[in-house]
């Protein structure tokens, strides 16, 4: 396998390390992310997942251990801009990350910061807005947009710096289902184009979006698997009080009644198909 695009080795992070009550937010994280991965990090509030994300693009520096992004160690300050321009980040509250008063000017903010020449700025802004399907709203003020639209503008702003990695830090948690679907669709499209995506969420069902899932609890990685495999740990997830997606839960229960019923379904469609197949098959017999 090629070199991972993000590599974390023995990463510890303390908030307020010198105070009487330091918070040990990351407790020895080892994690490799391959280029093109869609990694979903799931965990409760306070499990350290946001801290982990901030350690990737140098918003925070590990108190112990090392993080490499595209082979650059985040410990070296001279790598700062190179790392930040390789990692786009979208945060939880759409309103608190939009800087400008016009959509397209906000999208231009990132590339302006790294000194992209004006002609290319125009191209990048149009491209980024096109990807998130917001081109028609480019002249509108952000406060007139829906939350889902704002969050798509935020994604456009993050990808306009042409990063290799896109981190979504609970980017869908404040959106309604429609807005969430819009955002996830845009992210999926980006991932298919080759963008590495790291999505942080406490919605267990969003784990099915990715090709890898990491479950965090109290600053540690407690589970790492493919989205299909991760839900086979139904008991463990319940112990962590994380939801199992409803189709999986139902399949699991049906399997309890009829052991031939497969438990490896994750999507609603798969479950419906399976049930339909069985019902129709039963009728034929």
């Amino acid at each position, binding site marked *: 396998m090629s070199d991972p695009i993000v590599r974390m080795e023995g990463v510890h992070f303390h908030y307020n390390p010198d105070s009487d009550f330091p918070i040990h937010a990351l407790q020895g994280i080892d994690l490799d992310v391959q280029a093109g991965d869609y990694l979903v990090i799931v965990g409760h509030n306070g499990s350290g997942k946001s801290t982990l994300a901030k350690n990737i693009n140098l918003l925070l520096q590990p108190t112990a251990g090392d993080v490499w992004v595209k082979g650059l160690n985040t410990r070296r300050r001279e790598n*700062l801009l190179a790392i930040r321009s390789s990692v786009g980040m979208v945060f939880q509250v759409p309103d608190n990350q939009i800087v400008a008063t016009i959509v397209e000017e906000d999208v231009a903010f990132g590339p*302006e910061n790294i000194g992209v020449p004006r002609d290319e700025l125009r191209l990048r802004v149009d491209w980024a807005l096109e990807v998130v399907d917001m081109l028609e709203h480019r002249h509108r003020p952000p406060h007139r947009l829906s939350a889902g639209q704002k969050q798509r503008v935020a994604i456009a702003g993050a990808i306009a710096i042409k990063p290799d990695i896109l981190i979504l830090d609970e980017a869908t948690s404040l959106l309604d289902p429609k807005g969430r679907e819009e955002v996830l669709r845009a992210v999926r499209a980006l991932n298919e184009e080759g963008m590495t995506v790291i999505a942080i969420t406490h919605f267990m069902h969003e784990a099915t979006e990715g090709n890898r899932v990491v479950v965090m609890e109290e600053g540690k990685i407690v589970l790492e698997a493919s989205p299909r495999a991760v839900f086979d740990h139904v008991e463990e997830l319940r112990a962590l009080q994380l939801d199992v997606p409803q189709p999986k839960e139902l399949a699991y229960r049906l399997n309890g009644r009829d052991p031939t019923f497969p438990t490896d379904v994750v999507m609603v469609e798969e479950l419906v198909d399976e049930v339909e197949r069985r019902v129709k098959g039963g009728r034929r017999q």
Partner: protein
Amino acid sequence: MSYVANAILLLVTLGLVLLSGVSLKYIFFGLKPALPLIIVLAILQLLFYGDAFTPHGMASRTYFRWGWIHITNGSVQLVIVSAARFVELLFLTSLLTNTTTLTDITHGIEDMLKPFSRFGVPANELALVGTISLRFVPLLGEQLETIMKAQASRGANVAHKSKLEFVSRARQVAAFIVPLFVDAFRRGEDLILAMQARCYVGGRGRSSFVRLRFQRMDYLAYGVGLVFSVLMLGLQSYFPF
């Protein structure tokens, strides 16, 4: 300081309003909030400025004298002229805000300050501060509404307070303002992180997406404005009254 000069200025501002195509009604509407101030100012000037000012080239005449109140031809002229100036100023500012978006004004200010950035004027940063403030105005407005609703739902008497209950009104405002500030700081912190994540390291080395280009109309406006100001200054002594 003369009637003629102010009449000319008033005509010119009205001419500009007509040129801009903004309805006169809007412009007059902009006067309304300033009206009490203009009236109070006029009364004070009329009552207390009596002997302090004599019109250029004229003998001082006293129209009315009662105790320490002197009303002279000087104070009357002062009242009329300063009211006229006020009106001209307000017309021009509301003309600006009626024809130009705040975003455009911010970009304009940035461009105007740019030549001074070599003397250490942080033009880019100032413009960014302006933009972010404008960006936050609707957000804080929404937040204030939320806070007021939250307070009302817990029994705060929001709507029915007479204007004369100063103390209880002030206390109530504090109950809104403090959480609003806390919220604004939290948003600010979030925004800093978001800006850092988008590679913001200060104004230096930034390119800019918006380009304001001087067009013939802009040169014309600057030129006419300059000529007009010089004329008014130069002809000052020709307008004794």
